[in-house]
């Protein structure tokens, strides 16, 4: 028995070389409150829960993305810059060469680098392939499925080389067009008996068969446009959210395939593994969701960082941002971070996740028309108003968003208190004082469609992105 106990003692993981390998996995469009890391009603992400329970893992329970859509969000993840600083999706058409990316830094330090990604936003034309020796990209919004085997094959090859590696894998499993296998399609709501049919990027109703399909992106607001503001859509709202849960479960299955393969290759305890989502998702407006709920749905995302370690798994409740990922990884690997990075290293939290939360962060997130700044106690929300109403590219008018109207909420409260706490408003606005007052809304900037072909524009429009053709009004 003693022999057995001695032989079975937990061993510290050993690195493959002098520097740890790094695996970054992005599950697109996963909001925190629907994952198994939160108190969600469905077990949507059992694999992610399992990763978070491994020794060496730290779950950041209040991680916010820098932007609500992939183009701007991945730019922030890759550069460590907040959304209006890198400007991609707002004022820039592609990543500026003066803003080094995570892959470029790894490459400079001799890492092998590879990306397996998809979608029209994470495109080479927008600068996202910079720094990757291997770049495998699907043009469509595809799930992880087609990336898993190539990524694992690359991993096996990279492990034969002495140099450390950085592997990035990304998929749109929980994003329209929801191409998950049917086993997942309604696994959490088999009892639903309404006439709303979801799947493969469409929301089909009797009405939808006779109106334009662009309105068929799953959303309560689209249904309200079809059926009227006064119709009770509670069942439909629940069904859309549950269908989203099924898509999350499908994505988690693919995450399981990936981590299963990583473990089989012996890489699980050699690499720093980061799993996150670039942004969340909101299906509801009006009476089904207020603006604080919507902000949480869009910006609050899962973030799990697992280091090769025997330290007990932990959760940390401080406010952090996905722009912290770059400085954290570079700090962990003792590399020099780009001087411009907006984020902060979370290495001290990884070293000691029992440390208390300090109320000294103000984390900004952006949509084109709205901003949110989170701190431990407060949330500041600002709307940018589109001046001029309807815009057509054929006209000489340029759509401009601004100025911003601010509202302040204490977390957990629906009461707007900006008048009572002007000093808090001023303090949180300092976090984005460097952002421009007005935004010029060029559709090519917003969608990363500059220099792209009409097929891409068509794909973006089909998925509800604003890529208007001449004569088309803005939503």
């Amino acid at each position: 028995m003693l022999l057995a106990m001695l032989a079975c003692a937990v061993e510290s993981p050993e690195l493959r070389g002098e520097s740890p390998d790094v695996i970054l996995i992005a599950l697109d469009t996963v909001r925190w409150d629907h994952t198994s890391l939160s108190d969600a009603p469905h077990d949507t992400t059992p694999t992610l829960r399992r990763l978070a329970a491994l020794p060496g893992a730290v779950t950041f329970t209040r991680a916010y993305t820098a932007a609500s859509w992939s183009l701007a969000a991945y730019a922030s993840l890759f550069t460590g810059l907040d959304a209006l600083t890198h400007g991609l999706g707002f004022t820039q058409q592609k990543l500026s060469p003066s803003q080094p990316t995570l892959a470029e830094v790894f490459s400079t330090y001799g890492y092998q680098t590879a990306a397996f990604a998809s979608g029209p936003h994470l495109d080479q034309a927008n600068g996202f392939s910079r720094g990757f020796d291997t770049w495998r990209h699907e043009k469509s919004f595809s799930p992880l499925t087609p990336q898993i085997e190539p990524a694992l094959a690359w991993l096996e090859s990279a492990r034969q080389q002495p140099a450390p590696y950085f592997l990035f894998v990304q998929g749109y499993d929980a994003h329209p067009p929801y191409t998950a296998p049917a086993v997942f399609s309604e696994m959490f709501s088999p009892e639903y008996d309404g006439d709303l049919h979801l799947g493969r990027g469409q929301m089909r109703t009797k009405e939808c068969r006779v109106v334009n399909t662009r309105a068929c992106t799953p959303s309560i607001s689209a249904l309200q446009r079809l059926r009227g503001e006064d119709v009770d859509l509670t069942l439909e709202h629940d069904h859309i959210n549950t269908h989203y849960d099924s898509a999350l479960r499908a994505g988690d299955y693919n995450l399981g395939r990936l981590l299963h393969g990583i473990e089989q290759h012996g890489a699980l305890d050699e690499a720093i593994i980061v799993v996150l989502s670039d942004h969340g998702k909101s299906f509801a407006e009006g009476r089904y969701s207020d603006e604080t709920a919507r902000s949480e749905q869009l910006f609050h995302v899962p973030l799990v960082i697992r280091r090769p370690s025997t330290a007990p798994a932990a959760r940390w409740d401080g406010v952090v941002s996905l722009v912290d990922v770059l400085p954290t990884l570079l700090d962990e690997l003792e590399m020099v971070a780009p001087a411009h990075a907006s984020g902060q290293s979370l290495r001290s939290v990884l070293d000691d996740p029992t440390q208390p939360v300090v109320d000294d962060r103000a984390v900004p997130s952006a949509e084109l028309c709205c901003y949110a700044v989170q701190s431990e106690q407060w949330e500041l929300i600002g709307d940018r108003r589109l001046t001029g109403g309807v815009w057509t590219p054929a006209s000489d008018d340029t759509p401009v968003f601004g100025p911003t109207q601010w509202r302040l909420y204490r977390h957990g409260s629906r009461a707007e208190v900006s008048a009572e706490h002007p000093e808090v408003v001023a303090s949180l606005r300092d976090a984005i004082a460097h952002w421009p007052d007005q935004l010029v809304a060029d559709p090519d900037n917003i969608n990363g469609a500059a220099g792209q072909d009409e097929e891409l524009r068509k794909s973006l429009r089909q998925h509800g992105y604003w890529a208007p053709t001449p004569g088309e009004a803005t939503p």
Partner: protein
Amino acid sequence: MILLLLACSPEPAFADPAQDVLDQLDTDGSGALTLEELRAPNPWRMMKILDKDANSRIDLDELRADLDRWPVITGAGMNHRAHKAGKQGG
């Protein structure tokens, strides 16, 4: 020695994910999915596509073959409640 090795073989952190899905849906614990366990609007069609050996049960290999396939096939056309229109088995 063999016992010692067995005792010390670590459990994988991430076991077969297809088995996870099967376990989640296999409410009767039979090790395969029956029509009643398929949580889909049109389980008859799903069974027809996945049940390659036509034994009215979807076993682990049949399930995995569908889950890992790209592009997916069973997602298509599965969103219609055909049974409501009396098209059972369609």
